[in-house]
């Protein structure tokens, strides 16, 4: 049973080309227009903003929009990786490096700027982006200064972590451009930190795997 010999319809496109006939690496190096993305992203935000109760709710919705993308990107990027290096991330560090390097390069054409582990909470990791591409054309009204639309990207990260089997208690995006008490107008006003907090069972497993060598 193949697409050939079937009548065109919703299931079979008239040019006989289903998604299965396309090469997975076809669009590997192609880029999307930034203006098109910005336009679409604004629409996504205003869609999420409908009937929303507060900023936390809005960020949650943006997060939800990004989540399925993360699941798909994880699968796609590993399928595109050269066969020898196509390893499923089984430890936290390779997973985070995959996000900071492979995923970031795919999405934004550059690696993330820094990756840190929280000092007072072992389950928390911080991923820094000095100038998130998604926030480039977004200026926040004063009453919504808490909002960071990179929550969408946080959703993608959460999808990747969850998909790989590293359940999180949520990934959130926070603006840290103007440090409290610091002088205004720092070098990276849009600097954003993504807080990734893994669940306890993930850390437990990590410890067991670490002991096993």
């Amino acid at each position: 049973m193949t697409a050939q010999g079937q009548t065109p319809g919703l299931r079979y496109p008239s040019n006989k080309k289903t998604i299965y006939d396309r090469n997975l690496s076809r669009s590997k190096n192609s880029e999307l227009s930034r203006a098109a993305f910005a336009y679409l992203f604004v629409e996504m935000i205003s869609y999420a903003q409908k009937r929303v109760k507060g900023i936390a709710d809005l960020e949650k919705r943006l997060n939800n929009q990004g989540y399925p993308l993360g699941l798909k990107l994880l699968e796609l990027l590993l399928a595109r990786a050269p066969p020898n290096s196509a390893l499923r991330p089984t430890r936290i560090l390779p997973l985070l490096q995959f996000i900071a390097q492979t995923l970031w390069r795919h999405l934004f054409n550059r690696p993330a700027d820094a990756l840190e582990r929280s000092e007072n909470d072992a389950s928390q990791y911080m991923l820094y982006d000095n100038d998130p591409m998604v926030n480039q054309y977004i200026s926040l009204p004063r009453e919504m200064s808490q909002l960071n639309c990179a929550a969408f990207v946080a959703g993608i990260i959460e999808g990747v972590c969850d998909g790989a089997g590293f359940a999180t208690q949520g990934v959130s995006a926070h603006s840290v451009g103007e440090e409290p008490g610091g002088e205004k107008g720092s070098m990276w006003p849009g600097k954003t930190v993504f807080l990734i907090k893994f669940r306890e069972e993930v850390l437990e497993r990590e410890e067991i795997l670490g002991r096993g060598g």
Partner: protein
Amino acid sequence: MSYYFVIIGTKDNPLFEHEFGTSKQGGDGIARFREDARHMNQFIVHSSLDIVEEIQWGGPQAGGQMYLKHIDRFQSSYISCFLTATNNKFLLLTSPTASPAPSSLTRTSTSRTSYPASSTYNPTAPATEEAIKNFFLDVYDAWVKTVMNPFYSLDQRVTSPVFKGRVAGAAKKYL
């Protein structure tokens, strides 16, 4: 040889099933499972999920590899496994046409009539491992395309006849 291929989702739910026979050595590509073996296959595959979970995070064979090779056997059935990035499991049950060993009696002896004794099957032979790996990689390629469909959500059943065609094609090509 007869094969039973199934894709298991992240919640241990089956997403796709396909049965086929070997196309090598003049095989006609039709599965020759006995009627009651069909139910058994599902049980056997399901029980091997425990082993998949044991080795998916590491262990002698894994270490992040997607193809976990042959992981389990039950009587004369062998299970091979392939894990995708999002921890969906591809499981392939191989039921050889080999004559059962003399020591295994009872159940297998009843099925002896339906399995013509011809060759012995060795799941760890490099050629076998390679063939199954190639089969899995072909299916994986089609699988990623399925997943990339924006209308596909996690753990949804795959009903596309084109996907089934792809699996059948890979089966014919390699097994």
